[in-house]
Each structure stands twice: as structure tokens, then as C-alpha cells.
């Protein structure tokens, strides 16, 4: 007997379903393992639905700029990439960040640096949160399982269009290839998209304000400073509405705190089950890496005697945590496994 309302899909398939559920109608991308199946999956859907848009670009920069062009006209467009593709994507993403464009990018992390491996890692946290030549005014979600991949991909579109900010779903090669069960619900409502250019057909040819002239250049330092402050203040203002975290087995008796994100948070949760929930080990999971849920984390630190950070990178989550808890004197044990998965049993042994 099949589970009620559950579907059995791979992460790649889940991304497509979520994008469509969120009202996405445009995808632009370039083949790169392990994100290619997202493009192929969209191409499949596009071949059966003439209302959708798709173009396979000549490289990731083009893919990102095509996405920007579409977003400017009010289309819910997205892309998917990883690794060196993510590096190239920072060119258009910098523009999106500066100009507050609602782009959505699914990043399927693979081993780095450079070509690395085609499989898995959590090594694109720095790049996705702070890539480009800006200050990281972006929203980055890090799902821990297939259901969250679905939930947060839908959320990414709504966040992008509500706040006009480049938004990311930071996942990895494992999750995209994992086949498991989840609930494919249709969201009750999605944020409406609005065009930034070609808004109306009837305009007064002589009236300047009827036209839109968008730039990302400033000739004068002070103008650039003002633009930066505006972005900074906006980010500060919207962060509390966007930050998210998840806690497991955390209460006032908790002495040891594990911090992990994405798939490794799942392994950590399982590790706590293996150790035993009565052993006073808790888990804190930032669901948004950017903005980082600093307040939530600080609230949990009360009686903690030891922090453990696990990630499939050298020290990218580590850096975010330390910045967030600056001033805290709780000792931190960091376990970094760049490009390698970390099983629950491994985490359980190391605590």
C-alpha cells in the first residue's frame, strides 16, 4: 500500500516540481554535474508546455544574465549550477545583488576547489553567500532532506519576489541524486511577480518618469556609498523576517551543541538518536545561511559547555558560526571533511 499523498522522487525531480508549484515559468542553464538533471528535467516539462520558457545557454554567465533579463520583465525565472559554474554565475549574481533583482538559483554543491569532484560537498557556502564583488545581500536556504528541498525551493521564489533579492537553494550532489519520499503539496498562495521594465504600453513619449533607466554604475563615490547603505539597511530590515533555524533535542539541560547545515544536519540529528536523546546533546541547524539566524543561535547558548561544528568543507560553516557568536567563550570543536559525506555513526562516535 502506497503512503498517503507521498511521492517517491529524486532531488532533481523535486526541484522541478517545486519550481512549477511556485509559479516558475522560465529556466536558463548550462550543463554541469550534478545540476544538469534539473535543466534536463525542465527541458522535458518545457517540451510539453508552450507557456514555459527555456534556453540552454552557452555558459553560466549567459544563463545568469538570461535569467536577469527574464526577471526584469516579471517572469519567475531560475537557474541551477555548481562548482566552477557557480563561480561564473557570480558575474550575473553581482548585478542581481546590486540591482535587487529577484533571481533564484539552485546550487548543487560538488567537491572543490576548481573542477574537484562531481559528487558532493558543502564547499560553496562562501561562494553562494558572499560571492561576487558585493557584501552578500542575498538569501541562502540550506535544506536538509527532500521534503525541505521542496519546501525551500518554493519559498525561494516567494522570498525573491517579495523582497526583490537574489535567493538561493544551497543543496548538494547527494540530495539531488537521493530518491526518497515526500509530500508534494500545492502552496496556498504564491507572491505575485511584477515587471521592472516595459510596465505599460501607453506612455507619454516626453515624460521622463514614464520610462525606466536602470544602472549598476556610479560615477561619484558618494553615490555608490549611498547605494550601498540603502542595500545594507534593506537587508538589516528584512533579515528578521527571513532568518530561519531548527533545533533538535535542545533544552535547558543541553550541555553539548552540534551545529550543522544541509544534509549533514540530518546526519547529526540521526547521530543524536544513536547516542540517545537523554545524553544532553542538542542540535542547532541554520536553515538560512544568509541571513544567518544569529539571534536564534545566541538564545540557545545558555548552558552549553561545548560546541561541535560538522561540515563537508574546511571551515565555511565554522566561519559563519564564529562570526555570529563572537564574544562567546564556549569552546568549539570543528570537524571539517571537505568534499566528503559524514555519516550519522561518524558524528556519534566523535561526540
Amino acid at each position: 500500500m502506497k503512503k498517503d499523498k507521498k511521492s517517491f522522487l529524486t532531488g532533481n525531480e523535486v526541484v522541478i516540481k517545486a519550481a512549477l508549484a511556485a509559479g516558475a515559468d522560465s529556466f536558463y542553464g548550462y550543463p554541469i554535474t550534478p545540476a544538469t538533471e534539473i535543466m534536463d528535467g525542465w527541458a522535458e516539462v518545457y517540451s510539453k508546455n508552450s507557456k514555459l520558457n527555456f534556453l540552454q545557454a552557452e555558459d553560466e554567465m549567459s544563463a545568469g544574465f538570461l535569467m536577469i533579463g527574464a526577471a526584469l520583465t516579471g517572469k519567475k525565472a531560475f537557474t541551477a549550477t555548481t562548482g566552477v559554474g557557480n563561480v561564473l554565475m557570480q558575474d550575473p549574481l553581482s548585478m542581481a545583488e546590486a540591482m535587487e533583482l529577484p533571481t533564484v538559483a539552485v546550487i548543487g554543491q560538488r567537491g572543490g576547489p576548481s573542477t574537484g569532484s562531481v559528487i558532493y560537498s558543502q564547499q560553496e557556502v562562501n561562494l553562494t553567500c558572499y560571492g561576487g564583488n558585493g557584501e552578500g545581500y542575498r538569501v541562502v536556504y540550506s535544506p536538509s532532506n527532500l521534503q525541505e528541498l521542496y519546501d525551500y525551493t518554493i519559498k525561494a521564489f516567494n522570498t525573491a519576489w517579495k523582497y526583490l533579492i537574489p535567493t538561493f537553494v544551497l543543496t548538494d550532489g547527494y540530495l539531488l541524486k537521493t530518491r526518497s519520499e515526500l509530500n508534494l503539496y500545492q502552496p496556498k498562495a504564491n507572491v505575485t511577480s511584477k515587471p521592472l521594465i516595459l510596465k505599460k504600453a501607453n506612455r507619454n513619449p516626453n515624460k521622463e518618469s514614464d520610462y525606466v533607466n536602470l544602472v549598476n554604475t556610479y560615477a561619484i563615490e558618494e553615490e555608490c556609498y549611498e547605494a550601498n547603505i540603502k542595500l545594507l539597511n534593506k537587508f538589516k530590515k528584512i533579515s528578521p523576517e527571513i532568518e530561519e533555524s531548527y533545533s533538535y533535542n535542545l533544552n535547558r539541560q543541553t550541555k553539548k551543541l552540534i551545529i550543522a547545515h544541509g544534509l549533514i544536519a540530518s546526519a547529526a540529528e540521526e547521530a543524536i538518536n544513536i547516542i540517545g536523546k537523554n545524553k544532553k546533546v542538542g542540535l542547532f541547524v541554520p536553515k538560512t545561511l544568509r541571513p544567518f539566524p544569529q539571534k536564534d543561535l545566541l538564545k540557545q547558548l545558555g548552558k552549553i559547555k561545548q560546541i561541535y561544528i560538522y561540515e563537508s568543507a574546511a571551515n565555511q560553516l565554522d566561519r559563519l558560526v564564529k562570526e555570529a557568536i563572537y564574544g562567546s567563550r564556549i569552546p568549539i570543536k570543528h570537524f571539517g571533511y571537505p568534499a566528503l559525506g559524514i555519516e550519522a555513526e561518524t558524528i556519534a562516535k566523535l561526540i
Partner: protein
Amino acid sequence: MNSKSKNETIKILIAGEGGQGVQAIGKILSETGFEAGLSVSFIPNYGVEQRGGVTIAFIQFRKNREIIYPKFLEADIIVWLSQRSIKRTEQYLYNKSLVIYNSKFIANLKNPKYIRINFDQLANDIGSHRSTNMIVLGFLLQHLKTWIDIKYAKKIINHKFAKYYKINPNLKKQNDKALDIGYNLKM
């Protein structure tokens, strides 16, 4: 087959060369488990080659609770289909692992606890080398009787191969026979 966590989870690893059907078996087995109402997780692992190379399927079944992480350190059941795949996956062995290996491509491993079967020969014997995978699958299902009723596997296979069965009804006969042979094989 008992797993460490109180009969709750079973971890299966299948490894072989690209083209031997590792992922095909993994896909059918995992969908069968889902159909049977279990919580399932299936993740493939490949090299970069388009053809060939060692390929691995990690499958987990769990009753009553979701599977949280797709990979594992110790496999309750390991199936080796090629010589090369052994070195690549030896690390997943533990003292309770049930090891099944294809003697067509793997020299005698000399461990009496391991199950040694020439799957390809069995398939040839019924005149259907293409159904080798079905024999492997059937044999696995024999060892998963407490988890999955074989009727679900038949349902999934019939659904997946429906198009091919229409064109070639003989293929269905061969696959069904191969599955039963694997399921009833006494070693």
C-alpha cells in the same frame, strides 16, 4: 536480517561495473520498498566515465520512521557484481554483513560465510542473459522477506517494463521466471 538499530533499518549496498544493472536493480528495489509502504532512501554513486567504471547503489529501508541520511557506514547486505567493485566497497563490511557475490566475474573469495552465485550462468540456463538483474533482484528479495512481499516487486517491474512487454511478451515470461529463480534459490 537484523540491523544495529533494533530491526528498524536495513542497509543494502549493490556494487558493480557500469552496465551491469546496479542502478537498475537499485531503482526497482527502492520503488518496490516504497510501494510496500516502507520508508526508503536510494542514492547512486558513480565515477566520471560515461560508460563503465565502478557504480554503487546505497539503499535503506525503514519501518515506522523516516530515513534521515542517505549514506551509511556499514551495509547489512552487500552485493558484489564485479572484481573491481570489491576494493571500492570493502569499507562497508562489518561482522553482520550478508555478502553475496557474482562468481562469473569474481574469483573465489574463500570465505564460507559469503554467498557465491554465478548469476550470469543461471540467466543463460533459462536462455535469457538479459534477465540476470532479475535473478539478483529475486535473490535479494528472498533475504528481504520480512520487509517486502514479492508481489510489490512484480507490480513495479510490470509497470516499468510495460512498454517493452507489449512489444515483446516473451520478455515478461523471462523476467518473471528469472525473478522466481532468484527468489527460490537455495544456497
